[in-house]
């Protein structure tokens, strides 16, 4: 085993009520309760109620506790935390242990005749599962080992080790081992999915935060550009006649800065339809907006980047229509969505055009609408137009098929897993420790059944069925092969089913044996394990069908031979129980995965929308604060009636340059160049700094060197113009500095 942490380790975040691991632990606790109920009631019927026996009161209390504690745990399981579940199962085990100690004290001196064996010694799966929940996989295996040893001690003391009991104990052991393996797997599967989805959620959060920052920055950029740069650069030069207009514009800029955070971030969950309506009202107020939905899933849940692409493309299509459709054209915007996608149709009945006759450079706009949608994952776009027949642009987005997790373009971590996780053996196969354990268990099972066959032969002197059964079971495991990542091939499945049914047919062979005795049908339990592995290989249906076939055939064989001993019923029942429990776990693991994915898809959508909103708001607030700190004072003076004196104009010049550098100076916007530029602008130098990215990387030291050099050149400049620039890659120099008369270049750093 590669991991042995207690099943509720914090790494699986079971503290989260929605975690799959927590659900798995609850399910297991509920199963223990159900098993307890069935087994203790059955034990009561078979042996008389132990409580009513002549045992001392303390022992009777222990008997009741050993039933009551797991039942209570099972009942409250759906509402408690993983920590509580671990504690409850520890109490269950303590109750079992108390009963066991009492039993040993009372029964051993008398040879065990008077007191019935506690039920959980024959239904070992229950205590080992409790140990698994309480202490992890190692706890489960240690408990199983201890119980097996104890049962053997009890058997030898009570001299009750016939073939029947040996066969019985063998399969009790293997059943418990199977349950332990599969239950451990269930918990591991749950924990791995919790982890994968947590990672995917983190990735989704990061992505949507990035998108939000971009969107917030873009808003701010438009504001800074449109309002502040214009206001400041004009403030530095307007004539007194325009003082009023300047005050109005400054006031507008102040208001915009103030309102920016309240306008809220571009809200991904704001409802795509609402955003579209706002867009239409702004870009083409005369257009008619029609919305129709084919499902209850609102397109509000679209991933932010998908929504953004659709809206941007729609805006452009509308803009094109307004510009080109001609006067009087009617426009409609149609939004349709169903559970798996969105379709947006922008249609006008205007002049249209012949797409083939439009020169390539004029097709740019259409191309960019179409190209933009097509470059969005899951996006598509169509343009339909003819001269005189209007123009229709259809924009669409469809959730990528199969990758269920990616339905809104988001889950990347789990969708790949989901696509391949078709078999319950996947996780076993993926974990070398589990694979080894599985192989060891299989070898042990084969050895045990060979030993049982030998015992059976010794007792009946009949070797044929024993040899055939051992060979058939071994062949069955061989055909099943090692645990794989994909479902077992149908042909192999058919062979395994045929082998199992044929082996059951051995009960028809007319040989001398004592079918009334349980031990003679030992191979039915072996077949059960073959069928459980078949289920694990992704064929639970075939396993159940084969189990039914085996049961009917074995039972019929016994009846045909006029031998209707009650133990044949026990043997087939046990076989069906093992297959049933095994298939149940396999289906549970599969279902857990499917549900996890389904649930996580919705959660991730929410996570994305919320992180997008939060990050945009945060970003906007932070940047707005910075802006206000930087230029709030100057704007206030401009908006008031402060005299446009020289110092104020200089302040405007310096601030305009500083804001402009924030964009265009790129990596040059650093010390000491920032201060040098401010000082130079204060001296009346018209400073322009450029760093237009061309994809070439420069390290910090080189950028510092360039900024330092440019700052020194700037300090030497007394007036006029100054242009400083990082040169594109591949030029003979790293940077250039020009004033009105000359250019100087900074050579590349020597390597």
């Amino acid at each position, binding site marked *: 085993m590669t991991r042995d942490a207690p099943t509720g380790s914090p790494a699986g975040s079971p503290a989260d009520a929605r975690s799959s691991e927590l659900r798995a632990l609850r399910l297991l606790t509920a199963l223990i309760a159900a098993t307890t109920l069935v087994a203790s009631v059955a034990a009561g019927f078979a042996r008389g109620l132990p409580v009513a026996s002549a045992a001392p009161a303390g022992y009777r209390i222990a008997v009741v506790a050993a039933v009551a504690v797991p039942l209570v745990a099972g009942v409250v399981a759906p509402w408690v935390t993983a920590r509580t579940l671990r504690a409850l199962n520890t109490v269950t085990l303590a109750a079992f242990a108390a009963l066991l100690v009492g039993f040993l004290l009372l029964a051993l001196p008398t040879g065990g005749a008077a007191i019935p064996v506690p039920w959980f010694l024959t239904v070992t799966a229950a205590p080992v599962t409790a140990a698994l929940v309480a202490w992890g996989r190692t706890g489960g295996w240690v408990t199983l080992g201890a119980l097996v040893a104890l049962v053997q001690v009890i058997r030898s003391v009570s001299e009750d080790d016939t073939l029947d009991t040996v066969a019985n104990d063998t399969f009790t052991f293997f059943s418990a081992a199977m349950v332990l393996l599969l239950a451990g797997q269930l918990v591991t599967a749950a924990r791995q999915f919790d982890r994968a989805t947590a990672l995917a959620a983190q990735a989704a959060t990061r992505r949507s935060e990035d998108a939000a920052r971009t969107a917030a920055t873009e808003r701010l950029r438009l504001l800074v550009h449109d309002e502040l740069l214009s206001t400041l650069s004009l403030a530095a030069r307007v004539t007194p006649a325009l003082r009023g207009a300047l005050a109005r514009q400054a006031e507008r800029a102040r208001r915009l800065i103030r309102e920016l955070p309240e306008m809220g971030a571009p809200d991904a969950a704001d409802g795509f339809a609402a955003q579209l309506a706002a867009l239409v009202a702004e870009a083409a107020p005369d257009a008619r907006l029609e919305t129709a939905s084919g499902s209850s899933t609102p397109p509000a849940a679209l991933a932010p980047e998908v929504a953004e692409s659709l809206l*941007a493309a729609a805006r*452009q299509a509308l803009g094109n229509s307004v510009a080109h459709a001609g006067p009087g054209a009617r426009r409609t915007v149609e939004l349709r969505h169903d559970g798996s996608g969105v379709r947006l149709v922008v249609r006008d009945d205007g002049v249209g055009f012949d797409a083939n006759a439009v020169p390539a450079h004029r097709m740019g706009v259409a191309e960019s609408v179409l190209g933009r949608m097509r470059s969005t994952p899951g996006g598509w776009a169509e343009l339909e137009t003819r001269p005189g027949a209007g123009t229709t642009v259809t924009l669409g987005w469809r959730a990528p098929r199969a990758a269920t997790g990616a339905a809104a373009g988001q889950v990347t971590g789990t969708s790949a897993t989901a696509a391949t996780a078709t078999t319950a053996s996947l996780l076993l196969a993926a974990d070398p420790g589990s694979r080894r354990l599985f192989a060891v268990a299989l070898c042990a099972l084969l050895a045990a059944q060979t030993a049982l066959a030998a015992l059976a032969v010794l007792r009946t002197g009949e070797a044929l069925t024993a040899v055939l059964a051992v060979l058939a079971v071994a062949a069955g495991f061989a055909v099943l092969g090692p645990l794989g990542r994909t479902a077992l091939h149908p042909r192999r499945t058919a062979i395994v089913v045929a082998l199992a049914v044929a082996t059951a047919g051995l009960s028809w062979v007319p040989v001398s044996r004592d079918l009334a005795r349980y031990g003679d049908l030992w191979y039915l339990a072996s077949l059960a394990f073959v069928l459980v592995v078949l289920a694990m290989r992704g064929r639970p249906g075939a396993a159940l069908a084969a189990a039914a076939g085996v049961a009917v055939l074995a039972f019929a064989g016994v009846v045909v031979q006029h031998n209707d001993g009650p133990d044949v019923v026990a043997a087939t029942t046990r076989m069906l129980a093992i297959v049933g429990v095994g298939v149940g776990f396999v289906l549970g693991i599969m279902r857990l995965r499917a549900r996890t994915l389904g649930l996580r898809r919705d959660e991730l959508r929410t996570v994305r929308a919320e992180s997008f909103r939060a990050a945009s708001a945060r970003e906007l607030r932070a940047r707005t604060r910075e802006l206000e700190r930087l230029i709030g004072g100057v704007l206030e003076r401009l908006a008031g009636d402060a005299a446009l004196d020289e110092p104020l104009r200089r302040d405007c010049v310096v601030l305009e340059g500083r804001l402009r550098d924030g964009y265009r100076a790129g*990596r040059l916007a650093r010390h000491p160049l920032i201060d040098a530029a401010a000082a130079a602008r204060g001296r009346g130098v018209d400073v322009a700094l450029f760093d237009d990215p061309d994809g070439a990387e420069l390290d910090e030291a080189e950028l510092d060197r360039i900024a330092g050099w440019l700052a020194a050149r700037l300090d030497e400049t007394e007036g006029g113009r100054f*242009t400083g620039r990082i040169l594109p890659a591949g030029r003979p120099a790293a940077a250039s500095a020009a004033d009105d008369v000359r*250019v100087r270049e900074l050579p590349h750093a020597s390597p």
Partner: protein
Amino acid sequence: MAEPARVAVVDDHELVSLAMGELISSHDDLEFAGHAPTVRELHAQGIRADLVVLDLNLRDGSQPSENVEALRAHGAEVMVLTSAENPYLVREVSRTGVLGIVRKSVPPAEVLDVIVRVARGEPVPTTEWAVALDSDPALRTAPLTDREREVLALYATGLGARAVAQRLHVSENTVADHIRRIRTMYAQLARPANTKIELYQRGLEDGFLPPPVS
């Protein structure tokens, strides 16, 4: 003496339009024809102009290149005013027939000088224009001669026409010829127009950093 050129302003900031109007009226060769917040509005008001001074980034959702085309379709030459923040929009508009691209914050005398020259139909290569083109990765594949690249790179350092000519030991007319060919070649570079947001996002992808305002 020739008729003064009629110059109109399209800018959605009234302050800019008014200040430009003052500037234009101050020159004998120019006549201020009026202003409007959008190109559509300008045409709707029936303002006729020989030259339109156009804000690069109008907030009516229009594309700079479309605005230029619409104005030229009405027979006006176009000069673009920028706040000098985004090289992508400058590149886009440089593929149109725009004659000059000027930063709003350069000294008024320089703005006026460019207006006068473009009003005569003369392309004016400004630093703003040259930097955006010179740093455009798409230009690497353009069929420009070494000398043309040299001219563009010199303009992009911030030198004026005379200084460029002097550096290359050629006449200013020769430099102007080079500029004309660079303009033509650049206009032919096949690259689809884009939305403002897309241009901006491409800027981010290219490493064009968001504004550190502090």
